[in-house]
């Protein structure tokens, strides 16, 4: 039996005696029969009720411990005493009111203790009341109670999402699940893959191609993705040169002059650009521009060879109606990563501005490793309006600016044990600190606390469902089991029959030449 003990603002304490098996994250409903209203409350903490005399009981038991004896408990009182001792108190937060079956944000009223009943709200019932899973939706797992849980596509369409949690808690897994489901629903996705763990999204655990294999396109910048200067454009080049390579303004002016001259002469190429840089009369400016130019050339991203040059449009056309471009940044030097990302974002903005496509879902893993701070605001404001809907995935919550958290529409919070990490998330999210601190701390792996529009502002613990795809994001171990090692070796040999050629989906796009394949392997070896 559960009864209201206290209500203080949005905090409610419920006494349960005999104690019910209610856990953190579970939902309860207080139904006030006299007013036909209800309050939906969520348990954020559980503990023993402060029953008077418990300390004395414990001390007495310890005092008499080890004494053999017999109790003539003729009234069989022991179960009653145990029940009192085990009485629990559930600290809850009011999430919403229910007035005549309709959800209401008005929680300013207080139910009557005398006429209120407290009961459990089954997960299925909550999902129904909250209308979380209205179609079209993405089935992301099950609630703690085992109810199938899906989130509405509209709740992540046009929204800013954050997936955060400590290492190994299941962030990337959820991110992959979202990518695959968006692809399946016809959504175009771009993934900045810092660890190269999304590259096998098109394969099952047994290395068999999935039905959407062709829609998963892996881009290896500098290998199967090279562009001409002409395609990059002056604006993008100057952006990269100034923001990534710190080119001074005066030198940037010289770059602009060279670019315009070469453009007018219809002679814009890496070669002619390099020669023009050599002819700059001012030694300081020449050296400054030359160093940046050489840096850009060394990335291998740019080419004068039109046969190996591609455009982002070529790839995006393939994923426009459902697909994912996996930009593999694994093993790339930091500055190269930044060049790639700068280029991609600039181009994406330009393309979206010209309505090349309606929108794109951008997944950025550990974005602080390749995104300059100045870009964060830009992504969540300007780019969002252009149609870049970003999902940040990070295990360092403090790497994301507080203002980003405040603008996030959805947060999928996995386990954190570090107090500072929790504090970072809690001070800027849409729910109270206590919910974050008590629930997130005890989430098992693969469980997340979903906050925001995806769950209609009902914080919900979700067990993320497993994916039948090949996972590459696992931590490499030294003392791995031999049988697992054998299995991986066998798997690798099968994999080579697909990769990397089979990952290049279109005959219109350049295939990876032998030399380039070696570059990929070299790069992987460097890691």
């Amino acid at each position, binding site marked *: 039996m559960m009864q209201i003990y206290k209500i203080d603002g949005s905090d409610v304490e419920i006494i349960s005696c005999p104690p019910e098996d209610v856990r953190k994250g579970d939902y309860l409903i207080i139904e006030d029969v006299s007013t036909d209203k209800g309050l939906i409350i969520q348990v954020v903490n559980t503990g023993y009720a402060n029953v*008077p005399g418990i300390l004395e009981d414990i001390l007495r038991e310890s005092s008499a411990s080890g004494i053999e004896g017999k109790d003539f408990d003729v009234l069989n009182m022991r179960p009653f005493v145990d029940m009192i001792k085990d009485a629990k108190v559930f600290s809850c937060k009011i999430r919403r009111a229910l007035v005549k079956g309709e959800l209401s944000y008005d929680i300013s009223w207080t139910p009557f203790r005398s006429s209120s009943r407290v009961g459990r709200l089954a997960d299925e019932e909550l999902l129904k009341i909250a209308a979380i899973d209205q179609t079209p939706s993405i089935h992301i797992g099950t609630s703690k109670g085992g109810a199938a849980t899906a989130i509405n596509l509209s709740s992540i369409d046009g929204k800013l999402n954050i997936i955060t949690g400590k290492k190994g808690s299941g962030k990337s897994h959820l991110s992959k699940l979202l990518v695959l489901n968006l692809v399946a629903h016809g959504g175009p996705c771009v993934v900045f893959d810092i660890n190269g763990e999304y590259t096998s999204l098109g394969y099952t655990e047994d290395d068999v191609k999935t039905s959407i294999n062709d829609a998963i396109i892996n881009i290896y910048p500098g290998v199967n993705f090279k562009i001409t200067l002409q395609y990059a454009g002056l604006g993008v080049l100057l952006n990269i040169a100034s923001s990534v390579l710190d080119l001074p303004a005066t030198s940037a002016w010289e770059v602009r002059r060279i670019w315009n001259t070469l453009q007018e002469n219809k002679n814009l190429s890496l070669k002619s650009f390099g020669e023009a840089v050599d002819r700059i009369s001012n030694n300081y400016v020449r050296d400054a521009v030359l160093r940046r130019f050489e840096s850009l050339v060394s990335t291998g991203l740019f080419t004068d060879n039109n046969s190996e040059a591609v455009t982002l449009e070529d790839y995006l056309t393939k994923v426009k109606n459902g697909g994912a471009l996996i930009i593999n940044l694994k093993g790339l030097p930091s500055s190269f990563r930044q060049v790639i990302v700068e280029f991609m974002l600039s181009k994406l903005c330009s393309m979206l501005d010209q309505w090349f496509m309606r929108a794109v879902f951008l997944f950025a893993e550990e974005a602080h490793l390749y995104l300059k701070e100045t870009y964060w605001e830009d992504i969540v404001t300007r780019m969002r309006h252009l149609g870049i809907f970003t999902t940040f995935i990070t295990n360092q919550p403090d790497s994301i600016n507080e203002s980003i958290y405040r603008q996030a529409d959805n947060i999928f919070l996995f386990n954190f044990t570090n107090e500072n990490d929790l504090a970072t998330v809690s001070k800027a999210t849409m729910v109270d600190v206590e919910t974050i601190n008590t629930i997130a701390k005890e989430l098992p792996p693969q469980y997340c606390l979903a906050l925001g529009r995806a769950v209609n502002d009902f914080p919900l613990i979700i067990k993320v469902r497993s994916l039948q795809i090949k996972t590459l994001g696992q931590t490499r171990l030294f003392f791995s089991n031999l049988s697992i090692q054998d299995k991986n070796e066998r798997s690798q040999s099968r994999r080579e029959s697909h990769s990397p050629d089979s990952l290049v989906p279109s005959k219109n796009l350049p295939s990876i030449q032998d030399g380039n394949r070696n570059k990929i392997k070299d790069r992987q070896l460097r890691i």
Partner: protein
Amino acid sequence: MEVTTLSQQTPRDFARLGRGSLEGIIASSFKPKTSDLFDQDFRSLNDKLILNTNNEDGVIDPITLHSLNDETPVFGVDTSNIELGETKDGTLCAVRGTIVWRENGSYQYVRHGPFIFHISEANKQALYNTLRQIHFNEDEAVGAPIVEKMSDRIRGILERWLQRQICESCEDSLLLFDGSLTTRTVNGPISVLGELLSAARSRNNAVLAISKETSLSVAGHRMADLIDNKYAPCLLDIDRIALSQYGSHLHFFGRIYAAKLISSCFTFRLDVDRKIPKEEGIRAVERLLGNDLIAENYPETLRLAHVLSRFSASEVLAMQRFVAENYNLKVICRPNIRQVLFGPYGGFSAMRQEGADGYDADLQD
């Protein structure tokens, strides 16, 4: 003594009479009492003994004790009672009692209860006399005390029953009673305690009674101040002074000592069965020193008996729930008139003073 020996006996009719008394309250209203756990210890005030002596120069020499470890079993008995709440007709109370014994260095116990009684003006007479008849073999009906005192009387009967158990079952043992070996000389079954002591003696047991609450004073001085720690362990024979002042209206079955068994700030009143020779009585105390643990001047056997008998607040809540559920009682919360009228000035301490009566009024047998 094995636990099975003592555990074969149960206090006859306590459960039956308790249940019977509760049958009369089915579906009535019940106001649970906010548990005041100190209530359980008031009865110790019964053993308060204020001795006055004009013997200004009469120095009482302490009797020095020597610990004697001879593997004598030590048995202790203690009981508790507590009020659970009010019904429209009376009160609900619970009693419980425990025997603890130490033998071969280890402690064992047998605990009886709780037994819950509903006591009203209508049933108190029958209840009291039935219990007396069964347990004291007293066929003559006597007037029952007021309802508020009944739970204490029932506890007293349970305690005597437990004491009888050990007196009639044990041999060559030390039997520790909580309180004193004193009864009123009027309106009480003096014979009960006498019979218990006689039964104990016949089996070569020595009965010692220790009063937890020490309000023992001689000539205005607290006894604790009269015995210096340097004499511990020792006894102070104050029997003659007690007899001279209270002998006319109290019956002292025990020889009265002030006992300081170890160096501590406490001195307790210790009664030793008067009918065993004085030297043998002192020797019994020495055997107590050698065969039981003594902490804060109090034997561990009795301490455990007290600990196991005493009701905790959670047990009180559990019993209140038990009666409410099993007898379909409607729990009500009546305002506390005293608090309403007097606020903080009519609080608990004033009520407690009312409940704590003097020595004469509280003696039960």
